[in-house]
């Protein structure tokens, strides 16, 4: 009997991916906007910190998260008091995937903000609409497809997350055993290679689908900001 249930793994991966795209959105929007539109001391440092999960080995990132959120960790200790235990939970899997996907998410959203002529927002201000409402009436509507593209990218990245998840969330069947972890587990079994077939197909389908969606949304975003028909 296969130790890893493909259906469970795919379901978990989808759930982790969706939660990452949704929960990561506020942070990605804030960071993307900050890095695109504002200058402040320490901006370069922030940019590097945001990019770091992209260049660090995923297990190292996972290890750092464990140091932070484990039972004896800096934040983990406070959470213990509140009865919250992070490692080995579904939340840990989402957190690990979110941290690993954040560089891409922020990068995509930052690009989208930079593509928007800031003068649109300025025009709105001169028409008497203050910045916060301008953001809701002009900036967000204009950038919605691009933000969707960023979210799709984060979703796709979360689907493929392995290293950090393995360290922070462990390999718990039914709770954190996502597609990548399931394949890894099955490869350890004597005849496991055959059993990975469905997982591999599912993974390929999901990845291709996500990338196609990303392309479509990016194209839509470009057309949205066009000045002239056929630019």
């Amino acid at each position, binding site marked *: 009997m296969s130790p890893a249930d493909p259906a469970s793994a795919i379901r978990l991966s989808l759930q982790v991916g969706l939660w990452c795209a949704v929960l990561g959105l506020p942070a990605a929007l804030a960071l993307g906007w900050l890095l695109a539109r504002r200058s402040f001391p320490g901006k370069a440092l922030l940019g590097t910190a945001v990019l770091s999960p992209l260049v660090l080995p995923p297990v190292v990132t996972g290890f750092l998260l464990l140091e932070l959120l484990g039972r004896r960790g800096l934040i983990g200790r406070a959470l213990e008091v509140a009865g919250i235990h992070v490692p080995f939970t579904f939340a840990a899997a989402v957190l690990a995937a979110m941290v690993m996907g954040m560089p891409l998410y922020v990068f995509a959203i930052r690009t989208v903000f930079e593509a928007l002529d800031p003068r649109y927002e300025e*025009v*709105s*201000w*001169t*028409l*008497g609409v*203050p910045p916060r409402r301008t953001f809701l009436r002009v900036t967000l509507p204009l950038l919605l497809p691009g933000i969707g593209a960023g979210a799709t990218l984060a979703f796709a990245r979360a689907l493929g997350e392995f290293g950090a998840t393995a360290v922070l969330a462990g390999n718990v069947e039914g709770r954190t055993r996502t597609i990548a972890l399931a394949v890894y587990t099955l490869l350890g079994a004597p005849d496991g290679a055959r059993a990975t077939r469905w997982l591999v197909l599912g993974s390929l389908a999901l990845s291709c689908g996500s990338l196609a969606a990303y392309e479509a949304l990016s194209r839509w975003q470009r057309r949205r*900001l066009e*000045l002239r*028909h056929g630019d």
Partner: protein
Amino acid sequence: MATEWRLELVLDIRFESCAMRLELDSRARALAIVGPSGAGKSTFLRALAGLERRARGRIVAAGAVWQDDACHIHVPAWQRRVGWVPQDALLFPHLDVRRNLGYAHPDVGEVQSMAEWLEIAPLLARRPRRLSGGERQRVALGRALLSRPRLLLLDEPFAALDRPLRGRVAARLASFCAERDIRLALVSHYEEDVATLADETWMLAGGRLVPLQAQSVAGGEQPRGLAAQTRNAACPALASRTRTEP
């Protein structure tokens, strides 16, 4: 309420390679700013609108202090009641003409009459992408007018319109502003527009604002001396002030 209208300003605007020191004191209802291209006229309008963070100094308009950096006063753009019509219209791409016009005050009747007045009524359902340059400029003008400004800032507003249309729109604009006590600051190369709309003309060149008495500025043709000056403008040497704008 036609109050005594006075626009007073002293602004220092610093660029990478040069600096401007602009001083203006005018009681005119409508101003025209002329000068060679690249002199900074658009930047000046932006500074009046409150959009130019590089501009430091003091602006007083109709008795209200809009900016005074010495006292750390800076009234933000959305509180100044200016209508800014930039050179490339900048219509919101995701809204059709009707919603662009009604952006500040979505009053159906007002939008309709403004559209007719600017001869763009048949375009109300169209998206900005499908408009010609002249149509866009008129929509931008209408949008600014419908926001009930007290000072209208126009940056080459009629450049894409043909002559007869330009004449009509300029004339209508003049009477509209007179009726509603809207002041005007116009940047234009076209002497007919300047003549129709402006009471006073100022020249911006070499980093300075200079009042011109007569309407004797032909579009594009500047006296030789001034043109030569503005190319390699002898900008006033600034004391070792570091750039405050990142």
